[in-house]
């Protein structure tokens, strides 16, 4: 008797739980679970894509990029002119207001760009310092002069967000780190760190109010929990579906998977210190040929990657379709090593992060095994990204795995950063101290080539030389971005090349 009563009570308890947890998400609202939490609500406080993505909902740049291809469109500037190599004249949009009602004018543009060089609030020091002066012609016309020619200046404007001068100066600096006031399509309702970011539509948005009125963005770092959130109906859109759960999502009739080739390529940087084995082009070629990339994609990436033959992805200026991968050929690799005098192989340390890219440590492990098959002993040295990247910045490695994509869609900046001989303003992320004067001489003048067709040609030639003649890097693959959404809710979502989730582009 007592037992049946207890069971009944338990039944009622579970029943109530059931009815309460299956809360419905309204038609004009969306709950999205993302893999990385935002760090700050200061639009200049982080240059990580995860943060820029959240900021894109509250703030806007002078230009914007739109899904699905990431092409540039006008935003807070209606158009711009580029009269000479150093000058950018911007015509601002009239009648735009910040969330606090202040009108957007040239003063705000000047203020926002100047704020970039303040290390207390900005991670865009480089952009800030590259500007010589900002001239306000009138309320809606600004002239920006850069210290040196920057061909990708306009391509970067979508991620330089505009802040309200008056309120940012008046407010406590700490408040500007947590309460965004922008011109974007959404206003912040509440940010509870580690829990959620709630946004509400900005009904006065200059493009017109966005279709989804209430957004709740929840960061869930643990991938299996993110998956559970989706399956249990607590989230409708999930980014960063891990490759090992892909099949599970695919089999679930309630879910739909959306994939997109990612812009990021994964590759191996290889030093060429004079006298070291890898200074010999035959050795570099042999190492390239020894790696079975198809198997890496199939076994480690479970098919969620595409082979790469170069660092930039197809929409980038400088991508060269003529560059082909060297075919996997271990016999040839052994032969080349023999020719180069390394028949017995040599030792090398392969470094890499273990918490940054999809399956990063496993890829490094596989590479070491392939190299062992042709006699090269690669010692593995994988570590957390917080230790790995500073070492790259200091140039402490001889051989390492890394990934890259350039937010400006211009290969020039990437090459200056990764491939140029180290020096002031060059090669800060050239972690092996790779140095080749012929690459440098070809790269140096590209800074002042702006005319699109000419720039494309020069960068393509440079790319070919680096990847085919010099094998500066051994390319592996482009990652794939995997998203999942709840089926039957009418969610229209197109992923962007930069992996940002811009809620005004989503409808339901």
């Amino acid at each position, binding site marked *: 008797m007592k037992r049946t009563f207890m069971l009944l009570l338990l039944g009622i308890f579970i029943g109530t739980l059931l009815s309460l947890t299956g809360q419905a998400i309204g038609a004009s609202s969306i709950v999205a679970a993302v893999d990385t939490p935002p760090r700050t609500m200061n639009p200049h406080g982080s240059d990580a894509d995860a943060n820029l993505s959240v900021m894109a909902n509250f703030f806007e740049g002078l230009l914007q990029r739109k899904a699905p291809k990431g092409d540039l469109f006008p935003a807070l500037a209606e158009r711009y002119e580029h009269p000479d190599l150093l000058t950018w004249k911007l015509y601002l949009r009239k009648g735009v207001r910040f969330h606090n009602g202040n009108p957007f004018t040239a003063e705000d543009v000047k203020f926002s760009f100047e704020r970039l060089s303040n290390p207390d609030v900005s991670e865009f020091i480089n952009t800030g310092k590259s500007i010589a002066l900002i001239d306000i012609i009138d309320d809606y016309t600004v002239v920006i002069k850069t210290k040196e020619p920057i061909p990708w200046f306009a391509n970067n404007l979508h991620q330089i967000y505009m802040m309200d001068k008056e309120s940012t100066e008046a407010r406590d600096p700490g408040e500007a780190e947590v309460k965004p006031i922008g011109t974007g399509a959404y206003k912040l309702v509440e940010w509870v760190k580690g829990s959620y970011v709630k946004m509400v539509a900005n009904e006065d948005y200059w493009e017109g109010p966005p279709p989804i009125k209430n957004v709740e963005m929840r960061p869930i770092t643990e991938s299996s*929990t993110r998956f559970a959130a989706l399956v249990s109906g607590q989230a409708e859109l999930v980014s960063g579906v891990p490759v090992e759960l892909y099949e599970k999502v695919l089999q679930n009739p309630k879910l739909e998977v959306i994939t997109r080739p990612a812009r990021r390529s994964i590759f191996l940087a290889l030093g060429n210190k004079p006298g070291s084995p890898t200074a010999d082009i035959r050795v570099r070629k042999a190492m390239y040929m020894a790696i079975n990339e198809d198997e890496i994609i199939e076994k480690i990436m479970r098919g969620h990657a595409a082979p790469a033959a170069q660092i930039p992805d197809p929409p980038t200026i400088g991508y060269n379709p003529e560059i082909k991968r060297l075919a996997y050929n271990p016999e040839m690799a052994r032969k080349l090593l023999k020719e180069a005098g390394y028949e017995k192989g040599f030792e090398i340390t392969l470094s890499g992060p273990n918490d940054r890219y999809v399956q990063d440590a496993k890829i490094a492990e596989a590479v070491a095994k392939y190299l062992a098959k042709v006699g090269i002993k690669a010692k593995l040295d994988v570590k957390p990204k917080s230790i790995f990247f500073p070492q790259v910045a200091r140039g402490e490695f001889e051989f390492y795995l890394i990934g890259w994509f350039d937010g400006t869609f211009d290969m020039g900046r990437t090459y200056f950063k990764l491939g140029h001989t180290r020096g002031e303003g060059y090669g800060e992320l050239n972690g092996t101290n790779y140095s080749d004067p012929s690459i440098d001489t070809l790269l140096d003048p590209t800074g002042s080539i702006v005319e699109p067709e000419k720039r494309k040609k020069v960068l393509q030639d440079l790319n070919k030389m680096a990847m085919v003649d010099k094998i500066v890097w051994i390319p592996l693959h482009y990652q794939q971005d995997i998203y999942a959404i709840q089926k039957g809710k009418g969610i229209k979502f197109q992923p962007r090349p930069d992996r940002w989730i811009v809620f005004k582009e989503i409808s339901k």
Partner: protein
Amino acid sequence: MFTYITRRLIQGVVVLLAVSFICFIIFRYAGDPVVTLAGRYATLQEREMVRKAFGLDRPFYIQYTRFIANAAQGKFGKSFVSRVPAFGLIMERFPATVELATSAVFIAFTMGVGLGVLVSLKPYALRNRFIMAGSLFNISIPTFLTGILLIMVFAVYLGVLPPFGRGETVTIGFWRTGLLTWSGITHLILPAFTLGMYQLAVLLRLTRAGMREVLTEEYIKTAWSKGLPPRKVIFKHALRNALIPVVTMTGLQFGELIAFSIVTETIFQWPGMGNLLLISIYESDQPVIVTYIMLAALIILSLNIIVDVLYAYLNPKIRYE
């Protein structure tokens, strides 16, 4: 008594200094925050400028003494990542962790003691052998696995409990609580169980051992032979005496639960301090990490001192001189 407490406090300060020194050394070699702080595209010169702005170019001992001097005044520096005071960042997360740890301790204590008493009465009954085997299982199984299994069963397959987060919360003053809404309570169940599971097993075994010892004592036999009702014998005479080590254990573990709920909080995306610590380690946000560890050390130290002092009151046989 007074000299004892003073001595313990001085010891505490020394331990805190040692902890902070070790933290400082470790995190000095665990990544360079300047690379992130200056942005991906910063030049070498710009990086040096940022290093200067944050005082990271100074020699180690100057950075350390400055940190201690500030910490003594309650200033713990700004987070490198979110650029707001680290202490505030941690305190914002404090209520979530305290609520989780308290619920975990509550579950562990009530269930651990309850089952412990039950098992001690008929140690060789089949059901009780199962309970004991289960507790062994609980001690050996790692927290992250318990968490994932619970999520899979209760959130994914049965769909009765939410898999992550805190649900709806209510703010009272600075304290954001999930205990006052139904949604908040349902969100608490799985993580609290996961966190309390190990403790539960430990307390169960401790209670059982204590009870079995006490039940063989002469005075218990006397109580039985007097014809007292079983409830009185078990709870009033036996359990009270078996409970002393159990209470101590619970007190000591409470501090650890608050300080080290990292794994559980990460699995359930619980917005507490452990979750923050893990993210801060990934981002090598040194001010937050050092502040957190100092606070954790402070909490554990104070709880230890309180337990020691309470002991003297509870058991007159103990004298600290």
